[in-house]
């Protein structure tokens, strides 16, 4: 499959240098409600291109959550993927809720006022744009009916006169009228804005915040081994295993293995091996079991060095 790749595909594979330069290294992984998420498209493509991390896109339209084929950002990383990135120093974990809360609380008065003013300004711009649009709409509607819009000045004086007249006739209170006129002139109120992101004012946190390592299942050593060999992995639930393992980018290759990670001394049923092998054979793959080699005496003295991983590929013998 690899040797039949057309040569023309190479230019598109070249990294987009401009977007890559903007990626902070290490890049932050947002930890929100137990999920590891990436929100930046550039970071997502960078992680995929450079670190063989695919993750799963989970972003959908809130009102159309049944749409599940063409999902968008954020990208959810498996804990194993996040762990590999953190262990290799390519990324760090950010507890988003905590950073947000702390950042908002720690803001100085000037910063807060600045933020509020900024929000007012944005709201005002939005309101102006709204009213302009409404005006254009009404002009267009009038034109369609063959009418032309009256001059703005005359319109305003007319309306204010009308207001004055009506006000006096109704309430007979002269004090109110000037206020009403001034309001109609400056009736634009800033639209209340709820910012969708907290930066600015918050900046991207730096890596020094001692980021904890993501908790990973016991199949992690196998994942790390596969990743170190340059394989791409996807969650293997649909094949009843831990990972489906691809020899290259998942968009270009079929997967080769259905991998299940085990402890070295974990007992497994032969029934499971046969079932896995049978299923994998059916979908033209091999079933892979593997785990970290632990020697029986120094189980707790593992230290920093990474123990080797032993794997076995299983295929149906067709007899």
């Amino acid at each position, binding site marked *: 499959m690899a040797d039949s790749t057309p040569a023309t595909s190479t230019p598109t594979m070249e990294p987009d240098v401009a977007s890559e330069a903007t990626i902070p290294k290490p890049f932050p992984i947002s930890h929100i409600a137990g999920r590891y998420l990436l929100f930046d498209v550039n970071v997502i493509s960078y992680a995929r291109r450079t670190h063989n991390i695919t993750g799963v896109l989970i972003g959908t339209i809130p009102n159309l959550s049944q749409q599940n084929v063409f999902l968008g950002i954020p990208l959810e990383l498996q804990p194993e993927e996040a762990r590999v990135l953190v262990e290799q120093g390519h990324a760090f974990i950010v507890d988003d809720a905590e950073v947000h809360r702390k950042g908002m609380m720690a803001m100085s008065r000037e910063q807060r006022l600045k933020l509020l003013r900024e929000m007012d300004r944005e709201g005002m711009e939005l309101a102006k744009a709204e009213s302009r649009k409404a005006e254009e709409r009404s002009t267009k509607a009038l034109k369609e009916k063959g009418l032309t819009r009256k001059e703005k000045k005359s319109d305003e004086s007319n309306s204010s006169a009308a207001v004055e007249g009506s006000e006096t006739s109704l309430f007979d209170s002269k004090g109110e009228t000037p206020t009403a006129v001034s309001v109609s002139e400056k009736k634009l109120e800033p639209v209340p804005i709820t910012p969708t992101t907290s930066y600015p004012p918050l900046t991207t946190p730096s890596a020094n915040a001692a980021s904890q390592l993501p908790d990973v299942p016991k199949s992690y050593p196998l994942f790390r081994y596969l990743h170190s060999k340059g394989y791409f992995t996807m969650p293997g639930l649909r094949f009843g295993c831990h990972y489906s393992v691809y020899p290259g980018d998942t968009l270009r290759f079929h997967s*080769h293995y259905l991998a299940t990670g085990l402890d070295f001394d974990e007992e497994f049923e032969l029934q499971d091996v046969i079932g896995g092998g049978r299923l994998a054979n059916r979908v033209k793959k*091999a079933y892979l079991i593997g785990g970290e080699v632990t020697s029986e005496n120094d189980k707790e003295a593992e230290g920093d060095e990474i123990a080797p991983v032993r794997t076995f590929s299983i295929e149906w013998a067709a007899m």
Partner: protein
Amino acid sequence: MTRTEHMKPAVLPSPLSSLIKDEALRSQPSHLPSLHSLAIQIQHNLQYQHEWSDLQIHTRSSFTNELLPRPLLSGLPPQRLYIHPDEQIELLKDADRARKARGEEEGGTLDVKAAPEREWILPARLSEKWTLRRLAEVFDAIAVVPPQPESEDMEEDRAANPWRTTKRVILATADTDSTVVYYIVQDGMVKPRQN
């Protein structure tokens, strides 16, 4: 009710069970009799159901001469059991060249020549539980290619297949109803066949 000497037993033991009984009795006490009889059962199945030949039982590692974790079998299948995908591509190319040399058209048949190879067989019972460590111990004790039986002439020994670089065993799993299923287990990551 006692049975007299001249009467036949109500149910005759099957040839397999009498074989197991015999063999288990006269085998050397290297392994548990249950493991020996399992090996004999698999051997019987391979020989008579799958037409394998040159079946041998191995009790000791050829490297260290220590006892294997359990008796293993080796034998020759009637046709090649496993062809690595890269070897398959090579064989198809060879066959294509041969066909062109014969001057046949595209429609002519490709005859792929893959000579059968001796295989290791690991007998197991479905009721057993295995671990990666036990599996690794079996692989550590065997060579890539099983030894040739003494009866075979050395000159008949074919050139070693250059594609056979990883250890593999045929995991023969027997159920209590004597169904045996065969799966190929390879040491390490070996890409799947294009079946």
